[in-house]
């Protein structure tokens, strides 16, 4: 097995800049084993690509838990305060409304709106937080230059190592990846 270029060779290869390597696997187990080795080799700017979330892969990649739940908590707390504040300002402070002799400001009547806004703000934070932390939308990426990579969303598993990684070395990394037992190694060029 030897490294091939994403575009299958051709002229002008010398000018193309190497953006990284892409290693293909047939199964999720093979990918997980390879991930543990890439992690142990000290690479940081690398990734695994799978058509579905493979459980246990986070540990094989050495990923820390995401901070997203804390953001969601913050969003929910904000929503709760906005809900209470809005109702207090609108019906008790800015323009007190007399309704059936009820108090201007009483928590029980204000619970439903507060609850709904808590959920709304948390859900928006969960969604937008996921987008921001993942760097979406990002419509262009070196891995998309590979035709084989189109199967990453169907039934193939990939490891990509970026050229920006401090440990990256064109020949050393190529050799290292070849020893990981993938079915196909590819150079990503942009």
């Amino acid at each position, binding site marked *: 097995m030897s490294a091939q270029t994403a575009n299958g060779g051709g002229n002008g290869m010398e000018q193309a800049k190497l953006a990284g390597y892409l290693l293909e696997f047939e199964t999720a187990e093979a990918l997980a084993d390879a991930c543990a080795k890439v992690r142990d080799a000290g690479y940081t700017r690398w990734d695994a690509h799978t058509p579905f979330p493979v*459980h246990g892969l986070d540990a094989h990649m050495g990923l820390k838990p995401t901070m997203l739940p804390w953001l969601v908590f913050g969003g929910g707390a904000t929503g709760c305060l906005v809900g209470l504040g809005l109702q207090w300002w609108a019906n008790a402070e800015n323009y007190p409304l007399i309704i059936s002799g009820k108090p201007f400001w009483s928590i029980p009547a204000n619970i439903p709106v507060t609850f709904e806004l808590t959920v709304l703000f948390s859900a928006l934070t969960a969604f937008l937080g996921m987008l921001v932390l*993942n760097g979406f939308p990002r419509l262009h990426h070196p891995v998309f230059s590979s035709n084989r990579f189109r199967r990453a969303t169907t039934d193939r598993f990939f490891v990509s190592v970026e050229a920006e990684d401090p440990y990256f070395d064109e020949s050393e990394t190529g050799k290292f990846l070849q020893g990981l037992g993938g079915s196909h190694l590819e150079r990503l060029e942009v």
Partner: protein
Amino acid sequence: MSTATVPSSLDNTREVPGHRPQLVLGDNDYATVTEKVCRVVEGPFLETPRTWWILFGISASIVGMLLTMVGWLFYKGVGVWGVNNPVGWGFAIVNFVFWVGIGHAGTLISAILYLFRQQWRTAINRSAEAMTIFAVICALLFPGIHIGRVWLAFWLFPIPDQQLWTWPNFRSPLLWDVFAVGTYFTVSLLFWYMGMIPDLATLRDRATNKVREVAYGIFALGWRGSNRHWQRYERAYLCLAALATPLVLSVHSVVSFDFAVSQLPGWHTTIFPPYFVAGAIFSGFAMVLFLLVIARSIYGLQEIITLHHLENMNKIILATGSMVGYAYGIEFFIAWYGGNPYESFAFTNRAFGPYAWAYWIMVSCNVITPQLFWFQKIRQSIPAMMVIAFFVNVGMWFERFVIVITSLAADFLPSSWGMYWPTWVDLMTLLGSFGLFFTLFLLFLRFLPMVAMAELKVVMAHAKSHGDTVSRGTKEIAAEAAR
């Protein structure tokens, strides 16, 4: 292992203790599942199955009629409807409550069954979520158009009036509704779209022409199956599921407050929130079932949306239908036991008064028909479940009709009683909302992946390994299951 005449790989409705039913039938692997789901949306537009065109033609014409009815309403005013004193809430509120209720099944399937690790949900959650969104769109139509002066619809929102600087009344359940249904729509939409991102990326990667690639590519946001992304994505999905679970229970509770917080006999009862939620899930599941049976047969997805899935839904319909029947019984018991003459009159009047026909349609459709699902043969029979699902939806619509109309038509003072009858505009608007719902659903089937492929693959990978670190080949699993 079993002496069944049908191999276990074909019959996944057989309950074998200690053995989980196979969720994807046939000799499918990741690639064939992707192919089967994507093929539905990838064919040339003109080669869409004829059934789709016929159904789409019918429902799109009904949408045309809906728009005409709404236009007529805006032109003439709410007098074209049957509402008058004492029944000021007619079809608009009945339809609103009905459609919001239908919308509950999607979030139940996507959020509550997710938290309970019910893996069979993966084949049906996408279309159930889509159905939720379209049902809520139909529901939102009615409060929007029923207020008479539609150009002042923004008064529903917490915006101060421009002259007096007054605000809406936050102690009114009608305003709570705006927040509850608005939040529900937003969260359902986020949940649906977020769940679809990996599958949109699959469609992008399989695209054979530029238009399709760009269109799906934009909505896929550049998804590349990265595990760093999956990690945050799954966490966000879990958060959304955890948030949507209390939300789905709150929405129909808040809708029921519209009635329960008032003083009217027949409305002023504490049983309303749980009773409304059970009814909502009941009708929603019946609608999902109805749509999925049609969709799986148009597109040949019987190996993915299997009889096992349909049977599970029938069991939920049976359970929630029994809860609804129990609630009807308890209402009557409390009306008698509570000793309030107005309350007991309201209920006698429901069952034996001028609207008794509506009441008994409701009881026979909602209480009696779902009980047939105790029989396995009926739970597994496609024609039987279609008929029952249809009756359940008829019954649930009549439930809202009975609650809204009978209580308003005959309240405390006999001198202020009066009958309510819908006009032809009312009836055509109701029919029109069904047209809108089916049009949106058919468009969804044609252009978006109707099965959550990525989630289904997780289930396939874990079918036998029960959450081990890595998956095994599906071929192996299929071979084992066939043994």
